[in-house]
């Protein structure tokens, strides 16, 4: 197990470095013009631009620049906002708890509902309940986040007046954002779980479990579900990335001041250091979550460890 974790770590480190390199190179190749002026912002004086150029070594060769960039990154220094001159790291740390809370709560909710729906539809396969739920799942998977959110606001906040329009870090303020962000993941998980359960329910060991007189509930929930869970775990990891990316839109809809809102406002203000910082941090979190998911996966499925 330890060997597996170490091996997995060894793959993750260069991937993170490569990600940082991609973000670094994209900023220098895609946008025309002087990087120092770009990072310093439109309002910076020529002196400020020069100061930044020296500070970040932007007048030195690209590999040296990258080295300085990595060094700063390792110290948690993501530069300063081109608009407010505040350190980017401070602004991200302010916004991060909101995005992480939203994404984590959504992942938990989506997993709970998605797995339950999957088990129910598989158990009652091809009944009217299964068909109804499956149609709802297909429709749910096709509804864009930025329509689900406004529709939920319209129904629950404007018409029924039972929940606030504006999102906030309270239970009531998080219900609609979590549902908005989670509907796609829910749909995906329930489809996968249904397929997995159906496959497992037809296998020999389930027939054996039934034959030896186990109660149906024990067969489905203990014997079948545990094996159907394996593919679902991988999907949860992948979905978490989607949730992090999707939280940009959800935060925007509900006015939550998380990393997504920070990034979008920064894009509109051409505040490149902030955008770059958010992109790096979100990508880093995603990589870390996938690492953890892979390790969890190896725990559940011993076959993986000995590959």
């Amino acid at each position, binding site marked *: 197990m330890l060997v597996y974790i170490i091996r997995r770590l060894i793959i993750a480190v260069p*991937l993170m470095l*490569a*990600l940082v390199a*991609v*973000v670094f190179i*994209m*900023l220098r190749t*895609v*946008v025309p013009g002087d990087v120092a002026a770009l990072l310093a912002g439109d309002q910076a004086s020529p002196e400020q631009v020069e100061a930044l150029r020296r500070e970040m070594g932007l007048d030195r060769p690209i590999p040296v620049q990258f080295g300085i960039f990595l060094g700063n990154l390792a110290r948690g220094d993501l530069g300063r906002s081109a608009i407010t001159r505040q350190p980017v790291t401070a602004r991200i740390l302010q916004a991060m708890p909101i995005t992480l809370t939203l994404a984590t709560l959504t992942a938990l909710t989506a997993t709970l509902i998605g797995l339950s729906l999957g088990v129910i539809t598989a158990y009652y396969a091809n009944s009217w309940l299964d068909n109804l739920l499956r149609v709802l799942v*297909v*429709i749910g*998977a*096709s*509804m*864009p*986040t*930025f*329509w689900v959110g*406004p*529709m939920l*606001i*319209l129904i629950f906040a*404007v018409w029924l007046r039972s929940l606030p*329009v504006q999102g906030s870090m309270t239970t009531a303020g998080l219900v609609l954002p979590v549902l908005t962000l989670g509907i796609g993941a829910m749909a995906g998980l329930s489809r996968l779980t249904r397929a997995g359960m159906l496959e497992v329910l037809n296998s020999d060991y389930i027939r054996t479990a039934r034959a030896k007189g186990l109660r149906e509930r024990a067969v489905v929930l203990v014997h079948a579900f545990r094996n159907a869970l394996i593919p679902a775990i991988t999907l949860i990891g992948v979905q*978490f*990335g*989607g*949730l*992090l*990316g*999707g939280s*940009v*839109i959800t935060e*925007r*809809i509900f006015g939550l001041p998380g990393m997504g809102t920070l*990034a*979008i406002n*920064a*894009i*509109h203000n051409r505040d*490149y250091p902030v*955008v770059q910082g958010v*992109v790096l941090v*979100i*990508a880093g979190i*995603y*990589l870390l979550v996938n690492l953890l998911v892979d390790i969890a996966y190896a725990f559940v499925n011993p076959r993986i460890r000995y590959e």
Partner: protein
Amino acid sequence: MPSSIPASATNKAAPGVGATLAPRAATTRSPWAMALRRFARNRVVILALVVLGLLAASAVFAPLLTPFDPLQRDVPNRLAPPGPVHWLGTDALGRDLYTRMLFGGRLSLFLGLASVALSLSLGVTLGLLAGYFGALVDATIMRLVDLILAFPGILFAIWLVALLGPGVNQVILANALFGMPAFARVVRGSVLAIKSADYVQAARSIGAPGGRIILVHMLPNVLAPIVVLASLNTAQAILVAASLSFLGLGPQPPMPEWGALLADGMTYIRSAWWLTVFPGLALTLTVLSSNLVGDGLRDALDPQMVVK
């Protein structure tokens, strides 16, 4: 001649994915004809195809379907609810929502289709090269693809548009690069599967050049997964384009686009529900239909195929 190898020879290497190299070798029971029959049997998919056709037609013939101009303001009539004159109501500047949705559909569908076309060309080319040449070419291309996939969700597209600046072409480019990895992976996988097939070996042994083997022998046989993936990716591409527009990174106002219309509607959600309900409905209907057609194609072309 290598191209006269019968289609049935290809079926061994890629069961169900078979395609005919030479139409003259195809009988009435060619794999494509059988797939077409399976496809046509699925009523839900046919319905989805009809819906897509209607949506596409309404986009193409938009000016003929409405007496209004999508940009024509009518401020006294602002935020009018749906009624006999303005079927779906008007927005904050008194512009007719139905008209703006027709013209918005033009742009939304164009953004989606153009993005898919571009990611398909890029992805298929890279996938063919990676699969055929292997070794260093393969490693380089696939690591590039992995890197794009290492960004969570639409973050890569957002970062690219942030650098390129908002606009129609920028959205297409960002969206295309974001969608490209799926094509590259699927095509590479299919190429690897048929690389050692007898007919490819035969072509190689009689000295056919690499380009000819890739284009004449390999491409037709990886066509089925490409068609399926393209149809499934269209839904995603339309969504990503609309997402970027919703965030204000796409076509700039006053150009109507479904995502931008929804962002507009958010401002007036308390007073004008129609601005939120109808554009989203159009978008969902489009995505749902594209997904269903994609699923139908997948089932028809190869029940065993797993995308991604």
